[in-house]
């Protein structure tokens, strides 16, 4: 049975609809992520699950029981806040003990659990320190420890890594996955950082304007986005207006003024000739080579290098195609010392396989 069920939940603030008829469920032990740009309703949703806000319609169930009349303190759900929300007048130890004291656990039990939890987050030597004496990463770990110490049924995490610098962020991501796996607490994670969502989650709900655009596993979200918003929000993508020219078991598309190209046809996709939509392809699916080198791919165009972006591991080339279309292609920098292969203005051949990319009608 699902641990958490969100059924038809809506929330309006005056004339702004923050959450618009959202449905999803989370199973025990899952790392579930709500991903979306700011203002998409993900935090409002989280606050309703925690009990700080009430849905205008719909219901939120935990273990099959409606949470409507349960105040936040009675819900076996804890939150890790974006600002950490550590109690500034309490030591690390006292912060972590707080949920246990509120649950009136025996003092001996509390001491034992504090010790275990401090070891879990490697903060034993900081037990007597106050929050202001800790670094950002340490505060983050105290907030996590405080949320987990009483083993809630559900831990909500509201952009908990948002305030950390890139290096620490990556390290905390790894710690977070290990922690979640080791103690088996169900996580509902809110973030606007798509890479973080892809790296951490079992399943991701991509939200926009208060709705869930797509709910899938990370590889499906990245590899088979359902619509333009998801395709554009997750990772880099080449997106071109396209019209269906012919269809059999593959699609033939006119790509803007270019064409025709071959694109895969998905099983459940309803397509007609003349239908217009978008063709999407990830830069890493596009091969790039010198214009005079032949390519075996069915889809290929010759263009010129307009610009390139060297980011260490890869170089992203922006290629101008005839008729004003533009395509991004990724080239891994595997040969040491050769940061770039092509110069600005070089003629190049871009190509991709018939099964790469997708046609989206929404």
């Amino acid at each position: 049975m699902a641990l958490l069920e969100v059924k038809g939940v809506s929330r309006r603030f005056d004339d702004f609809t923050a959450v618009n008829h959202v449905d999803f469920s989370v199973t025990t032990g899952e790392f579930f992520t709500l991903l979306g740009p700011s203002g998409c309703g993900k935090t409002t949703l989280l606050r309703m699950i925690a009990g700080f806000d009430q849905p205008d319609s719909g219901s939120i169930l935990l273990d099959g029981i409606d949470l409507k009349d349960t105040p936040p303190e009675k819900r076996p759900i804890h939150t890790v806040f974006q600002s950490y929300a550590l109690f500034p007048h309490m030591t690390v130890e006292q912060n972590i003990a707080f949920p246990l004291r509120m649950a009136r656990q025996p003092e001996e039990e509390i001491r034992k659990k504090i010790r275990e939890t401090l070891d879990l987050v490697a903060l034993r030597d900081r037990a007597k320190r106050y929050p202001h004496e800790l670094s950002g990463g340490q505060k983050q770990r105290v907030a996590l420890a405080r949320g987990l110490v009483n083993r809630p049924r559900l831990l909500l995490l509201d952009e908990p890594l948002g305030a950390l610098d890139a290096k620490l962020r990556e390290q905390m991501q790894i710690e977070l996955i290990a922690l979640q796996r080791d103690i088996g607490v169900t996580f509902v994670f809110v973030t606007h950082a798509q890479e973080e969502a892809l790296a951490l989650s079992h399943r991701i709900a991509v939200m926009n304007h208060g709705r869930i655009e797509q709910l899938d596993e990370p590889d499906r979200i990245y590899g088979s986005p359902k619509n333009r918003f998801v395709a554009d929000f997750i990772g880099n993508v080449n997106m071109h207006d396209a019209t269906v020219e012919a269809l059999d078991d593959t699609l033939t598309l006119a790509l803007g003024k270019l064409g025709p190209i071959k694109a895969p046809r998905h099983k459940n996709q309803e397509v007609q000739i003349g239908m217009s939509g978008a063709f999407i392809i990830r830069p890493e699916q596009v091969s790039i080579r010198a214009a005079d080198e032949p390519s075996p791919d069915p889809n290929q165009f010759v263009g010129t290098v307009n610009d390139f972006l060297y980011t260490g591991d890869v170089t992203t080339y922006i290629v101008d195609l005839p008729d004003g279309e533009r395509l991004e292609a990724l080239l891994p920098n595997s040969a040491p010392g050769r940061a770039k292969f092509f110069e600005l203005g070089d003629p190049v051949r871009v190509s991709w396989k018939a099964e790469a990319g997708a046609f989206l009608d929404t």
Partner: protein
Amino acid sequence: MRRSPLLWISSLAVYAFLYIPLLVVVIFSFNDSKLNAEWVGFTFDWYRVLVNDQMMIAAAVNSLIIATVAALLATVLGTMAGIAMHRYRPRFLPFMTLTPLAMPEILLGVSLLIFFITVFGEEALSLLTVIIAHTTFCIGFVAIIVRARLTGMDESIFEAARDLGATPWQSFRLITLPLIMPAVIAGALMSFTLSIDDFVITFFTAGAGVPTLPLTIYTMIKIAVTPEVNALSSLMMLLTLALIVIASRIAPGFIENQRHHGEEYET
């Protein structure tokens, strides 16, 4: 940095203007003469006269009772008002709480007098009416200080308390109150000092039977300014000074907390 001598002179002048009269009052309280005119010799006599003055002792007791009770009431109500103003952003509460601060004291005194007499009758004027009147104008000060303390505090701290299992009352007692305590104490001390030296509002609401220290000083001055008044003023100064010292003992903690609190956001 080079400081302009003009700045030195002008600030010295300001402090001299502020403190020399006070210093003169204190010095002449030790003057062995009935007049405040010239220095004759050193004596503690006026303090001896003061502590043996039954009228003065009664007034002091009144003042202390009024200041203590009014400060306590104003602190409780003002803290509640300050929290409410911060948390719920009500439209009219700030006006209603803060107006007594801005209104001329004489207006407040007269309107309270009329109110007490019409509602409770002339004989109602007593210690109680003075306490009510003082509480009224002290609430606003406490509310402002408490609200200022809450402003900029991370709201999610209070939500975190609820989230982790605290009832609203536990959340107030264990999180909110300890965090605003410096402001609450500062508000209480401020209320106490405002109450103990209030003259105008007390004058209107005290009636005949409740002389306070400021009222007694006024009565004495009408006859003649004897060094007994100086002695009394010096003692009141000492009390106020003591309160300021206590408040500033709390203040470093207050400032430090603010600083730590600020750091929460920097990361």
